[in-house]
């Protein structure tokens, strides 16, 4: 048997310890969501002896008209899908221009992008609120789509510009000599060659928009417009808190980003560490 070095053993034990600590809240959440409220209240979620498992909390969270996760899911999808696709399409064009062309004030515009990226959401919320009110887009999903798309434009442009910078220019030059025009080069060469980066961006932006609570809370007023993160918030009553129900709702809310992460894990991780890094 191969001998395991003490340093490797120690780091493995520490890594497992951290993983368990990291996963513990999620394990607790699953346990609470799968058991009757009274049982969790009396025994605690960690006590497994004589536990009864049920899907009642999930059924209730999904379809109760007071706080329907189903309605929240539909609203979240209506907001998240266009808020992912639209900024990627627009930012890809902008990023290509920043990466390949010279134009007046290019550097100043790029610095503006960086400044926008570093701005906290809270700073923009009051002007955005009044702007949406003027546009009659307050309390409308379209308004939230507009806000998320605009907010996403800056970082997606920055991210894709860095990726386009790393693409070999000879590929585009070859297409130019082969007879392709600028738009054909962008659509037929640059975009398809950038699919892994586009998938990274899509995964991150989708997760970001889906998980957003702050903007949704500020710009959506009517409960029928609530996205899933807000619907989960409504499950908490003023005097009564059903932890089982809240846990089931939370699991529903995180399910889509989790599935997306599982499906696009490679691109997600690549997007986080950056495409220019080797690995």
């Amino acid at each position, binding site marked *: 048997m191969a001998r395991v070095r003490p340093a490797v053993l120690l780091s493995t034990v520490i890594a497992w310890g951290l993983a368990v600590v990291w996963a513990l809240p999620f394990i607790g959440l699953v346990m609470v969501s799968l058991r009757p409220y009274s049982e969790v209240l009396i025994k605690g979620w960690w006590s497994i002896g004589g536990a009864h498992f049920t899907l009642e909390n999930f059924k209730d969270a999904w379809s109760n008209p007071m706080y329907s996760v189903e309605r929240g899911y539909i609203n979240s999808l209506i907001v998240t899908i266009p808020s992912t696709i639209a900024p990627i399409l627009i930012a890809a064009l902008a990023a290509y221009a920043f990466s390949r062309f010279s134009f007046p004030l290019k550097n100043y515009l790029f610095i503006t992008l960086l400044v926008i990226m570093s701005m906290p959401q809270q700073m923009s919320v009051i002007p955005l609120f009044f702007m949406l009110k003027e546009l009659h887009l307050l309390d409308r999903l379209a308004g939230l789509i507009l806000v998320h798309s605009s907010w996403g434009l800056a970082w997606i442009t920055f991210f894709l510009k860095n990726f386009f910078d790393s693409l070999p220019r000879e590929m585009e030059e070859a297409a130019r*000599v082969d007879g392709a025009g600028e738009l054909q080069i962008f659509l037929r060469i640059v975009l398809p060659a950038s699919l892994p980066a586009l998938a990274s961006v899509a995964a991150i932006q989708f997760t970001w928009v889906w998980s957003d609570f702050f903007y949704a809370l500020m710009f959506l007023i009517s409960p029928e417009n609530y996205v899933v993160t807000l619907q989960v918030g409504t499950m908490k009553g003023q005097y009564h808190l059903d932890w089982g129900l809240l846990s089931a709702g939370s699991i529903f809310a995180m399910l889509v980003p989790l599935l997306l992460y599982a499906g696009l894990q490679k691109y997600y991780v690549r997007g986080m560490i950056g495409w220019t890094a080797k690995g």
Partner: protein
Amino acid sequence: MAVVELRNIVKRFGRVTAVDGVSLRIGDGEFYILLGPSGCGKTTTLRIIAGLEYPDEGKVLIDGVDVTNTEPKDRDVAMVFQNYALYPHMTVYDNIAFPLMIRRKKLGLTRSEIRERVMEVAKMLRIEDLLSRKPGQLSGGQQQRVALARALVRRPKVWLMDEPLSNLDALLRGSRRS
């Protein structure tokens, strides 16, 4: 084929003069080789003929027509790049067919005619069995043959090749030259 003429071409990159007053005339059907140490401006000269760089001084003529400021796509030249510049998301077949597909209407070619021409050039370069692969699945020599095929399939007025045979094995190199 065509006559290519360079008249007193000068190209500067900042303070560096990459091409300094080059004049030459390449006859119709002529096989012309630029030789010189690295950094002497061979690639830049080729890029100026292709239209990928515009000279600071001088003129480029193809068949007597001044193309100095003409876009590469309107010059009817094909080029093999030193690092091959294959399209990584396309199969070998699509890479070779790309120049024909992109100007299919202009050339009046059907898809089957394109297929015929791709197969012809693939056979000549012995890459018929690689047509469904992506460039990333090829060796350096195979990639170079694909780049060569992409230029040969075009039948343009001018073929420009930047170190086109450096990665080919000796046997194939001999047959390509001939």
